């Protein structure tokens, strides 16, 4: 016996890839991380512009629990507050209780619940919302939002677009909100599904942006990360992952952990047709317009949802309300989210034109906001989140159970085709890799 053990290849140096690689490395399993980009952290990176505004790409914060697990607590600042509002016909409702204080929404929601048990499971997201929230709340708020978010009609979306809520009674939500008030910390509320939420788990912002989280993980993997090394193919023989092709060279591997979006993974895999159903899975592209303004507190809350169909956007985030350090004093930044398709007019529009389009819409939300405008920067991502279409729901459930190729595992937000947030990505990846590492 030669004693040579081919390494495990990890595709992608984002949070999930680095967590998986570190865990394997700690167990003495040889590992190589291939990253197509010039940096680790993928979508989690952010940067500070000349005027002192911080632009985050995707997630803004993590929890103190994740920070402690990574040993970076001392580099994190507490997020003081977090709240969401829904803007409907010029009126702001706090979410969720403000909406439920409105009699027509409350009555609809109660009526929707009557006799629910006897019915068969809902066939679509539209049906799910109507049953759970009542017709009015569903049609005026939930359905327009999920359609803008997904870019597909709610009748074509599977109910799984709504993640199962664990331990989310009204009393629990109220308790966490109260704890947030009492402690002056943004207690995580509806953010973590993998681990229980409690008054002791709140949002923190890592100093020097979220990219820092990944850099910390990468620090434990010195010499094992290949940057600017896109994986061109994953080679499968006899139903088993045997190698990866990088820069035209085939490398022998003992297993592959992929964080690539599953429709990309389907195209990377050679030597089997087993993954071809994944090729039609869709992710929603998104343009995130970071708009700079004078003033602070322009919006009713940190996140404002805008279900009105005549607005070009469906969500506006005023992150400096919860994290003042993201903008210089006396100024603020609104991040406006517009769902789009790669190559469509929004995707191809020049940044300033996109800014002008948003400004027009914002003027109806915050009259006079035009005078405060200082300019914008635009970030575009082709894979903001998965689109849960009914047409491939059966295949998605199969993916949840694991890929049909032995030694090939799909992990992380894109790899699992799941709308999971930072902390959940961490715990899910740990759990998954822990189970699999025993067999490696």
């Amino acid at each position: 016996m030669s004693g040579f053990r081919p390494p495990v290849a990890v595709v992608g140096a984002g949070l999930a890839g680095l967590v998986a690689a570190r865990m394997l490395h700690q167990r003495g399993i040889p590992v190589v991380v291939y990253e197509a980009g010039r940096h680790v952290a993928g979508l989690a990176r952010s940067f500070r512009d000349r005027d002192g505004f911080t632009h985050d790409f995707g997630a803004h914060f993590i929890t103190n629990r994740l920070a402690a697990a990574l040993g970076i607590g001392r580099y994190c600042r507490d997020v003081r507050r977090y709240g969401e509002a829904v803007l409907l016909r010029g009126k702001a409702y706090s979410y969720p209780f403000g909406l439920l204080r409105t009699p027509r929404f409350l009555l609809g929601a109660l009526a929707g619940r009557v006799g629910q048990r006897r019915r068969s499971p809902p066939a679509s997201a539209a049906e799910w919302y109507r049953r759970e929230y009542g017709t009015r709340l569903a049609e005026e708020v939930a359905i327009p939002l999920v359609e803008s978010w997904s870019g597909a009609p709610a009748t074509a979306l599977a109910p799984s677009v709504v993640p199962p809520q664990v331990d989310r009674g009204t009393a629990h939500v109220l308790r966490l909100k109260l704890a947030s008030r009492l402690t002056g910390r943004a207690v995580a509320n509806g953010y973590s599904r993998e681990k229980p939420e409690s008054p002791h788990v709140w949002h923190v912002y890592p100093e020097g942006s979220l990219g820092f989280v990944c850099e910390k993980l990468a620090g434990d993997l010195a010499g094992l990360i290949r940057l600017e090394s896109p994986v061109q193919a994953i080679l499968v023989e006899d139903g088993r992952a045997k190698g990866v092709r990088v820069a035209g060279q085939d490398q022998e591997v003992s297993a592959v952990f992929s964080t690539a979006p599953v429709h990309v993974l389907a195209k990377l895999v050679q030597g089997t047709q087993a993954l071809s159903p994944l090729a039609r899975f869709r992710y929603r592209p998104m343009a995130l317009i970071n708009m700079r303004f004078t003033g602070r507190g322009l919006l009713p809350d940190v996140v404002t949802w805008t279900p009105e169909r005549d607005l070009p956007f469906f969500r506006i985030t005023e992150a400096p309300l919860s994290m003042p350090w993201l903008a210089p004093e006396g100024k603020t930044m609104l991040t406006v989210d517009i769902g789009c398709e790669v190559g469509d007019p929004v995707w191809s529009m020049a940044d300033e034109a996109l800014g002008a389009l948003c400004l027009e819409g914002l003027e109806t939300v915050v009259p006079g906001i035009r005078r405060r405008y200082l300019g914008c920067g635009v970030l575009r991502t082709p894979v903001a989140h998965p689109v849960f279409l009914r047409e491939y729901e059966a295949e998605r459930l199969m993916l949840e159970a694991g890929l049909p190729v032995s030694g090939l595992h799909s992990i992380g937000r894109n790899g699992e085709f799941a709308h999971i947030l930072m902390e959940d990505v961490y715990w899910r990846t740990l759990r998954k890799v822990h189970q699999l590492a025993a067999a490696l």
Partner: protein
Amino acid sequence: MTVTAPDASPSSPPEGNGPTSSVGGVPLVLLPSRCFVCNDDDAEPVAVGQDFDCSSSPETFLAVRCRRCGLVYLNPAPAPSELEPTHLLGRDLGREIARFCQRLGDSARILHVRGVEDLDHPRNAYDAVLLTNVLERVDDPLSALKATKQLLQPDGLALIITPNTEATVCRVFQGRHWSGYNFPRHRNLFCAQVLGQAARMAGLEIVSVRTGGAAEAWVLSVRNTMTDWRLPHWALATLNRTWGAALMAGKAIEWWQQLRGKGGLLLTTLRRPAE
């Protein structure tokens, strides 16, 4: 050998151990750790905490519970050399120790171990060894237990006193403020079952396991909560002023919890088997 009785004056609040540890403002090196019983890191997070005694420390810590055996440990944990040994003795221990020593008789040779350096004594020399608030602090509890075994004569007894992770006070303050965590000084925290398992691994027999009262744990946990939630200064001052009364209340609760087997301290008597 005589045993020095711990200071048992309960009327004043204890100071934080800031000056004796390196936690203060100095950054710690935190390293991944694993359950020393199972040699695995498959665990559930149970508490995120800070060094409440020296609130200037910016570090946060994660206590996790091993999915296999139930040991609660820090992961990541400070590098072994990071923390100076501390010699704090809880005030609830005095009576327990006196009772244990009384039973052994006047002629017994008893060693009271309060830190890992105290384990460096002649082998096979003691009738009894006391480990009070030691096992939760040491880098390697298994080695400490093995060293304890070697200090004992065959049939010698060891009394291990350590915070109890199945105590009511732990359950109430579990998520963050339980004084038993004492972030980051307590690396490993035990329930009866895990301690028994670790003792057997070290070649010691279990004679008895029971729980003892830890009145102070209630008051300290309340104080941790108040400090952490930045309650007004007068609230903390009031607690400090009425420390004695608060301890009495803690005693009353612990008296009841002890009867239920849920007291704040775990008292485990072990024996070195006769060869």
